[in-house]
């Protein structure tokens, strides 16, 4: 009975972790700036590729994941400065622009890196409870998701940046009239959103074979058993 209960918790934790890690950045960007970032998936991809690349260069996994998140965040700041900043209060235009960016990045990666690269293997091994085996790394992902939530709460509720960011979110003109550098707040927030997307990709990189989004979609549609598709969450497996 306890094994079944743990299995339920494990699957909940697995889905919870993926939803939180993949959507937190998207929610920040939409909540702060009203921008539906269609290129969010590409920031996830960026985190995953940077992680795999760095690990293959010999960088320890945890460090590679941190660097991948930072890289995605910095690219996010650049994207905000070069593209998104001009499209605030124009939700459809910003949606279209980020979608265009998404298409360009996806196809560019396809041309540059190819259709797939070798993964780096899931760390931490597995453990058994009752008749089931579970991946330890999936629990690490759950812990990371909880840590991200706590970190975001502290950042936005307990820090100087958070107070000013929430004021900017509620009334940007008034925050500006009180002296807030709203442009900088937006850039940092977009960077945090992109960084969280990168972190998601970095954390999930060891669990999947990397395939560009467009191909993954095609693969999912055409595959008879798409539940085994890359980036899908694996269910606990019964040993033979």
């Amino acid at each position, binding site marked *: 009975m306890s094994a079944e209960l743990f299995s339920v918790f494990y699957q909940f934790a697995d889905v919870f972790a993926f939803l939180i890690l993949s959507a937190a950045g998207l929610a920040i960007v939409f909540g702060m700036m009203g921008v539906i970032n269609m290129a969010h998936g590409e920031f996830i991809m960026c985190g995953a590729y940077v992680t795999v690349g760095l690990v293959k260069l010999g960088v320890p996994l945890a460090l590679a994941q941190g660097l991948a998140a930072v890289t995605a965040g910095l690219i996010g700041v650049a994207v905000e400065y070069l593209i998104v900043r001009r499209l605030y209060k124009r939700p459809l235009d910003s949606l279209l622009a980020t979608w265009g960016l998404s298409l360009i990045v996806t196809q560019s990666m396809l041309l540059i890196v190819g259709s797939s690269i070798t993964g780096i293997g899931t760390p931490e091994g597995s453990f058994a409870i009752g008749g089931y085996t579970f991946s330890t790394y999936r629990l690490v992902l759950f812990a990371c998701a909880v840590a991200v939530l706590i970190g975001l709460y502290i950042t936005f509720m307990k820090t*100087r940046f958070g*107070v*000013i960011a*929430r*004021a900017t979110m*509620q*009334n940007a*003109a*008034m*925050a*500006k*009239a*009180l*002296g*807030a*550098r*709203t442009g900088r707040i937006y850039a940092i927030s977009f960077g945090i959103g992109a960084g969280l997307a990168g972190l998601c990709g970095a954390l999930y990189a060891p669990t999947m074979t990397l395939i560009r989004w467009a191909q993954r979609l095609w693969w999912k549609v055409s595959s008879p058993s798409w539940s085994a598709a890359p980036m899908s969450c694996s269910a606990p497996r019964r040993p033979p």
Partner: protein
Amino acid sequence: MPTDRILDVSELWAGYGATPILQGVSMSVSRGEIVGVIGRNGVGKSTLMRCLIGLLETWRGTITFMEKDVTQLQADARARAGFGYIPQGRDVFPQMSVEENLQVGELIGGPEGRKLPELVYEYFPRLKERRRQVAGTMSGGEQQQLAIGRALIGNPALMILDEPSEGIQPSIVQHICDALKSFRAELGTTIVFVEQNLDTILEIAERCYIMEKGKITRSLAGEEVNADSVRAQLLL
């Protein structure tokens, strides 16, 4: 040579879209003055205030603040230079607590800004009682006190108020008027305000500029600031 002028506005033009609202406004304010801008609805008083703080782009003309041309500065830079703004409708941050609203003014005030939360609570004790309350749930009068406290906490040299008595019960309006006079007396704050309420104008204004059709047409000073002259400008 230094002057006691804190604000000089010269031939200011501004508007919305292609429609000019301000059509060559010129005015000046000395340090420590309380100056009212009065006129009928739609003559451009609020537009002038938005232009002064930098929320509306200036088409032509100059705004000089403490002997520096701030015409091209964004609103945030003007706030850091010493402008404080209390807009029409208060514009408190509705989902943040009273304390957090004040923190925004305090934090943005920067290292030069004096941190005055206790002083704000002295002027407006109601805010201290309600410091954990979400600002959007407060009454209009309490929100107005919060908006003034939020601007004051950044220690502005010039406070700009747009209709501070609008929609507020008379006893609180009187309290706000007393507080504004105290700011000037105790902190040396210069105040420019737009108002339609005759009692408020007579209570605090030392000088008034009369606005008509996007221009300052005349000014009232000293004895001229009386019920008959002000009423004539508001009604005619």
